[in-house]
């Protein structure tokens, strides 16, 4: 800065003290600017009302065998599928080692659980204290987020090479446990956290 200073009287002060003041003032401006940036970024994060409305309740008794209900959870479509006994059996024939993504992708389980059908179905879900849930119902039902793990399209049910779900956007095939078998999607369909509130109702989230 002293280069552009044309002060005719010359430099009376010690340069070091001047430099300190300039650095301190410039530093204060930079720190203030950095702190000021945060509110303008944070305002884009989900607001308190968006975070609060984050649970969805579903009555499983409404979903007959072989049918699928799509509900909204946190604004996202979510499959609630009542599988047939054949579909469960078909899914159980395939182990986690035989498929591209061996992870259960289930938020109800500890991270890294393997992708067995038991870990994908409602058997992995939590149950509220004192509630009894029919075991057949738990192995038949599967609840998954409906967005393809490739680029977010909603796959079509009971179609594709594995008779589970088929994503028409880029051709990802999922099996009857929602596990990716062929195509560009990298992961199995994600399973949100949910709990049985009674023998037939679940709360997602």
């Amino acid at each position, binding site marked *: 800065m002293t280069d552009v200073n044309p*002060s005719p*009287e010359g430099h009376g002060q010690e340069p070091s003290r001047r430099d300190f*003041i300039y650095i301190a*003032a410039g530093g204060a401006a930079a720190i*203030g600017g950095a702190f000021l940036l945060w509110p303008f970024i944070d305002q884009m994060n989900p607001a*308190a*009302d968006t975070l*609060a*409305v984050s*649970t969805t309740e579903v009555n499983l008794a409404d979903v007959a065998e072989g049918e699928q209900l799509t509900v909204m959870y946190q604004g996202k479509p979510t499959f609630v599928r009542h599988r047939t006994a054949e579909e469960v059996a078909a899914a159980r024939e395939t182990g986690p080692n035989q498929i591209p993504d061996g992870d259960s992708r289930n938020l109800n389980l500890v991270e890294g659980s393997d992708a067995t059908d038991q870990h994908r179905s409602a058997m992995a879900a939590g149950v509220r204290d004192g509630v009894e849930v029919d075991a057949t119902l738990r192995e038949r039902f599967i609840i998954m987020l409906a967005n393809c793990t490739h680029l977010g399209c909603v796959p079509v049910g009971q179609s594709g090479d594995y008779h589970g779900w088929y994503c028409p956007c880029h051709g990802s095939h999922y099996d009857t446990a929602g596990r990716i078998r062929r195509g560009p999607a990298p992961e199995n369909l994600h399973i949100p956290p949910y709990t049985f509130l009674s023998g037939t109702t679940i709360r997602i989230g």
Partner: protein
Amino acid sequence: MTIVKRLLVAAVGALALAAPALAAGGDQHHPEEHTWSFEGPFGTFDRAAVRRGFQVYQNVCAACHSMKLLSIRNLGEKNGPFRVMPDPEHEGEVIEYTNPNDNPYLRAIAANYIIVDGPDSAGEMFERTGRPSDRFPSPFANEQQARASNGGAYPPDFSVIVKARHQGPEYIRSLLLGYGHEVPHDVHVAPGQYYNPYFPGGKLAMPPQLREGIVDYEGDIEATPEQMAHDVVAFLSWASDPKMEERKQLGLMVMIYLFIFAILMWFAYRAVWANVEH
């Protein structure tokens, strides 16, 4: 800089001209002064008073006055009245419930409300008990129904009532306690109206509400009209401006920072101009 002084003197003079006029009122009484915990640059809400005030709101006001911009969860959000509560198991300790959805006090409050939700898969609306994420249900379906039930008067929504009235806290407290004055002979009070000198025009459709003991307070505090008015105004002030404490806390930091920054800039200015005549 003499122009600054002259203009300042002129401005003060002009304001002095206005001051008596600003102070002059009509027949409407000026709200009574009162001391609040939330006044001043460091003022905070008295959580216990806000909780008692919520009880008054629920038991007395909510029969007619909606609060449609607030949700039950707000009571348990940061600086809310039900966020930090005494620990029932360890005397003298407190628990902070960081997620309003899991706050047992809020769940209990929510369970008192019947919420119309839906449509369900059959297309029907259904009723269910409340959850903390629900908004406070309004006592009337719409303004017309509210007017029909209140002799043509519309009980205002309470969400931002304190900010929506000049001198909000003092005004509302004075209004609540302002019944029972002798009616001046030039004021005609029609049936279904009540005289209250703090209300603009002096007549309103709301009967006096805060009777001794209309609410049961926990503990030793007696539910006198003065106490209930104080408490409900504390609650409404919180409801109107729930971010007040956060605002004042951040404000203190910002003011300190700007003050230091201004001093640094002053010295930088002096250093740059040190050898320049100007």
